[in-house]
């Protein structure tokens, strides 16, 4: 870097326009500082006004005691935390089952030829029905209905059937995600796999699915975030003592709603880091892809 024209460039008319009358710091740096100041001020004003509105509302003292009682929070915490463990276990069990069931449904739907029509039909009926039923109703119907049948050899445990209901519903959505990924793989990839003499299954397994799944990883991860919260719906079965149910039991006894806040804090403690991670992962994935295309 001995070239003096690079290191000692004389100021020109353009420079003064870019830096403005103050000189020194560039236009961009000044703009950055200004943006930072505006952002901080507007944030403080916004949350200040919102807090003032809440605290000055006529019933605030009562709400504060019923929802934000530190004493009730501390008292409820051990039970709610114990219940949250049930949610975590349920979450991981569902995360193991859903990708497998969904993949089977998606593959069934992607098979071509008249011989596979019954499988395609079955897959369409499955996704239509289980995406059409609100999850809370599905948990109630399966969680209470199937154990009531008292079928030999099937577990009668409500938590088990809650897991099945979650899996059935989420697999329908996840299967559609897989299918959109499979459909996004160019038709020519299928042609060239078949031209090598691969069967339909081999074509899916070795040529299409690896590309399809890579396409939909961001969408799958968003589903994981929403599953993490929906496991709380198992509380409607009553007998499963998860975080929400534990909070409900305490609230029914004390008429104080703070235990719900405890459960909320626990769910947020998991879902916020998870959401941040997914955002980071998706951004990185996008950056990598746009790089790979150059």
């Amino acid at each position: 870097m001995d070239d003096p024209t690079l290191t000692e460039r004389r100021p020109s008319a353009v420079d003064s326009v870019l830096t403005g009358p103050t000189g020194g710091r560039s236009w961009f740096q000044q703009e950055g500082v200004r943006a930072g100041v505006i952002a901080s001020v507007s944030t403080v004003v916004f949350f200040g006004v919102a807090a003032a509105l809440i605290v000055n509302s006529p019933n605030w003292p009562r709400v504060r005691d019923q929802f934000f009682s530190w004493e009730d929070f501390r008292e409820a915490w051990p039970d709610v935390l114990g219940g949250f463990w049930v949610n975590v276990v349920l979450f991981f069990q569902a995360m193991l089952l859903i990708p497998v069931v969904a993949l089977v449904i998606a593959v069934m739907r992607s098979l071509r030829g008249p011989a596979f029509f019954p499988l395609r039909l079955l897959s369409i009926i499955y996704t239509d029905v289980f995406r059409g039923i609100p999850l809370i109703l599905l948990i109630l119907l399966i969680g209470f209905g199937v154990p009531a049948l008292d079928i030999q050899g099937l577990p009668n445990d409500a938590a088990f059937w809650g897991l099945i209901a979650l899996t059935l519903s989420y697999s329908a959505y996840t299967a559609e995600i897989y299918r959109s990924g499979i459909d996004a793989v160019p038709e020519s990839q299928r042609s060239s796999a078949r031209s090598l003499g691969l069967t339909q299954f081999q074509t899916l397994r070795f040529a299409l699915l690896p590309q399809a799944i890579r396409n939909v990883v961001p969408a799958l991860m968003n589903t994981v975030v929403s599953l993490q919260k929906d496991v709380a719906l198992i509380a409607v079965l009553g007998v499963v003592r998860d975080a929400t149910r534990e909070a409900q039991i305490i609230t029914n006894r004390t008429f104080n709603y703070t235990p719900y806040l405890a459960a909320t804090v626990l769910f947020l403690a998991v879902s916020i880091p998870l959401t941040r991670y997914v955002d980071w992962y998706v951004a990185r994935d996008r950056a990598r892809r746009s790089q790979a295309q150059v």
Partner: protein
Amino acid sequence: MTVKLALDHVHKAYGDRVVLDGMTVSVDEHQVVCLIGPSGCGKSTLLRCVDLLDPIDRGTITLDGVDITAKGIDTNAVRRRIGIVFQSYNLFPHMSVLDNVTLGARRAQKRPRREAEEQARELLDRFGLGDKAEEFPNRISGGQNQRAAIVRALMSDPEILLLDEVTSALDPELVGEVLGVIRELAERGLTMVLATHEMGFARDVADRVCFLNEGRVLEEAPPAELFGSPQEERTQQFLARVTEAGRL
């Protein structure tokens, strides 16, 4: 000369659009046949139908005298006897060149990986891709992609190779290396059917050139004859336009 491949009055429509309208053409063993003609004349569809990638509506396609479109034919076995290379190479982007090339051998033919890789490396070496075996398709040039796709099609020792405008997607300076590979295969006596816009190459390498128009063969002759004194008016018009564009 024995007939290797024959299409007899093949009809094929996509919806309302008739693409093959009584296509009749035959290819002798060790012959190179070039299909030329305007876009939409049915060249690509013909090749796709021969490899059983698209079903035909009527007519017959025979390979060594056996109707391969008949019911009860093992289509996967037929596809292994026929190699096809596409315009846009279609290598699998999630696999290395070596895995791309050996996939059919390993999965469809159930050959051991070691043996398949040995054969693959030999072929890759011969076509100048020896050092690209571990690369992924997006890291190598279009010409290298297309040569790898040809190697992939050759892995099952096909009795006939179909080439669908294999140089059309390439940068002009990469066309030569791919045509060189095809020329070598022709010299070694591989039976080939090429759909192509490279008239100069067709004149060089083909034993017979077929001019396709509206889903059937309008005129066919040895290249010198077809390019020198085309009989049909449509053929003359087509060749005149190609010459104008500087492609002949």
